[in-house]
């Protein structure tokens, strides 16, 4: 389906935020915001939910914990119990203290890497991916709001542009996709 995208560019993150607040109160749907650094407080304004990557990290950590625990029980207690300097090797419980460091390290390893990989995949930021920011300056000092006309069926394009003009934007661009 043909769609029209409007990009409004701003010089300042706070102006963009104020603008977004105003637009949203007028019923405009802001599709996305591109910025060179995180604009704090923009997410609730344009309706972006908090990420659940933190929960994922916890889950990966639990997986790591389970694997490490099972692994060490299997290696040291079940499969080949060794008598090392007379240290107890008959049950996991007796050995628990000396298993703690690796259990901890492995939990952290899984939590960190699991989350990082998930982060790159859900972002679709992987080696060789094409950049999608509408203007190269958005990674430098410009801030862009993106609007899709299919998201804003309640108003015409010129109505939206009129609203945008009141927000202190510096440049306007549009594209058919």
């Amino acid at each position: 389906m043909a769609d029209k995208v409007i990009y409004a560019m701003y010089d300042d993150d706070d102006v963009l935020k104020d603008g977004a607040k105003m637009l949203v109160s007028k019923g405009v749907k802001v599709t996305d915001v591109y910025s060179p650094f995180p604009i704090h407080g923009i997410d609730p304004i344009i309706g972006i939910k908090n990420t659940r990557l933190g929960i994922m990290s916890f889950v990966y950590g639990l997986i790591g914990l389970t694997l490490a625990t099972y692994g060490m029980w299997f290696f040291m207690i079940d499969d080949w119990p060794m008598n090392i300097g007379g240290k107890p090797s008959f049950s996991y419980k007796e050995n628990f203290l000396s298993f703690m460091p690796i259990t901890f390290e492995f939990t952290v390893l899984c939590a960190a890497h699991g989350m990082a990989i998930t982060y790159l995949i859900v972002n679709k930021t992987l080696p060789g991916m094409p950049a999608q920011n509408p203007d190269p300056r958005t990674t430098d000092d410009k801030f862009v709001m993106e609007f899709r006309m299919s998201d804003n069926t309640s108003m015409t394009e010129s109505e939206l542009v009129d609203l945008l003009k009141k927000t202190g934007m510096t440049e306007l661009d549009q594209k058919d996709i």
Partner: protein
Amino acid sequence: MHKEAAIREPLILGHKTYHDITEDVCRPIEDKAPKTWYILFGIALVIGLYGVGCILYLLGTGVGVWGLNKTIGWAWDITNFVWWVGIGHAGTLISAVLLLFRQKWRMAINRSAEAMTIFAVFMAGLFPLIHMGRLWLGYWVLPIPNQFGSLWVNFNSPLLWDVFAISTYLSVSLVFWYIGLIPDFATIRDRAKKPVAKKMYSILSFGWSGRAKHWNRFELVSLVLAGLATPLVFSVHSIVSFDFATSVIPGWHTTIFPPYFVAGAVFSGFAMVQTLMLIMRKAMGLEAYIHKKHVEYMNIVIMVTGSIVGTAYITELFISWYSGVEYEAYAFINRATGPYWWAYFAMMTCNVVSPQLMWFKKLRRSLLFTFIISIVVNIGMWFERYVIIVTSLHRDYLPSSWSMHFPTHIDIGVYVGTIGLFFVFFLLFARFFPVLALNEVKSILKSSGESYKNAPDAHHDEPTPTPVVEAAAPVVEEKVEEKVIEAVKKGTKKKLSDEEIQSKTYELIAKIGDAGSALDDLKVISGVGPVLEKKLNSIGICSYDQVSKISKEEYDLLDQLTGSFPGRAERDDWAGQAKELMNKPKS
């Protein structure tokens, strides 16, 4: 945005804009490298290659080429290993622990400190690996099914804990570092002119676009990784200390090792950060971002951790006597008065005395002094490890096996070689990678930048003190004038006195005329947002006509009054824009 107290020193000096930050950081990458870079790189490379040569010779001949003997089984290799791991601690501490504490000054140094961490841990990892003698069997430290029945590695051994700790630490630091680098690579990618550079940076930047959702995830991932890296950084050096503390060697067998090693690691790590940063800020022109305040903060960390280390030394001495164990007591008497007294003396002077000088504000804010102390601390911390390892071993329980350790030229070559390799990596990093965390520095510009801190509109989301509606309606002329002055006074009280503001406002309005009944939409002018419009209205500028009359002198006045973006109004040519707007037919 977090508010910051006005008396806090700004972290970004000068009148920087977002674009300036990008320019300052990207210029060294985009320009040709200076000659000194090539010279330094050449020197580092030669030293590094010499080290590689020594390692190859060692691998071909055997560990016997080192100065180790039957009594002293660990000496230079493990000293260097612990030294490098210790240096590695500062990077993660700066980026992770200080992130959790919301310390903004970390943002200027965390990128390069983390790079330093990663390269230092590379160097550290090298030593246990080559100490194995047969490097190609290094994978035996991993619990993998093997041909010896199912003989597994010993999970009770601190040496194996070390394998897990160091490799986890290295890989998590690497990921943490790279995730922060992705958006900055995107900045370089979008600026790159040369096709090869563009291609390289677009691969490195993973197609980062800076969407709001991505930033949302980015911030959470950074926070969680910091949360994970914080206990990790403390665990790593604790585990390194277990290598010694779980043994039954007098001098090693102490329970204070874990906290004492961690403090020592942070101590030496920050010293290395200081050494590198002081050179880098100068060489790359980053004085506005890494300045005396940053150095002072780091010196305070050095002072605190140095004091912890000093306390630990003295505690150790006291306990060795108080315990009544004569072996333990002898280990320490031997350390201080035995044949290695000079190493002990070097350690005590460098690590206990030198950080105490940081109590003097003048000294801890002096760059030259800091640089010297940072080198002294690096040397002292190397000696600390040498003292702990060699002096505890060289006189063991059996006097007939007492011995001395003399490093061979291969010992020295490998050590110096790792320093060379470290600088090879670091110089490459400084040449091709953004050495400042661009996106993070930009995000603190408004709260900690000098020009914003002292400007009245440092916090845009605060309500402007101006009664806007009245001020904007020039009909009630006199009343407005008063309020205007009141408002401007509130806004710029740091810079101008009341009289000055009053006279300047009058001067300005006299020059460009008053608005009459016109009330134009000033926001249409590029560079004027709603906040600035309110401010302009409050001064009494409400029409295009007035703006179009602004010339050089009035721009300066205006900048003083609005206090925002010095020089920006002129650069954006408001007057020209206003003229055009006036000539436009009203829709």
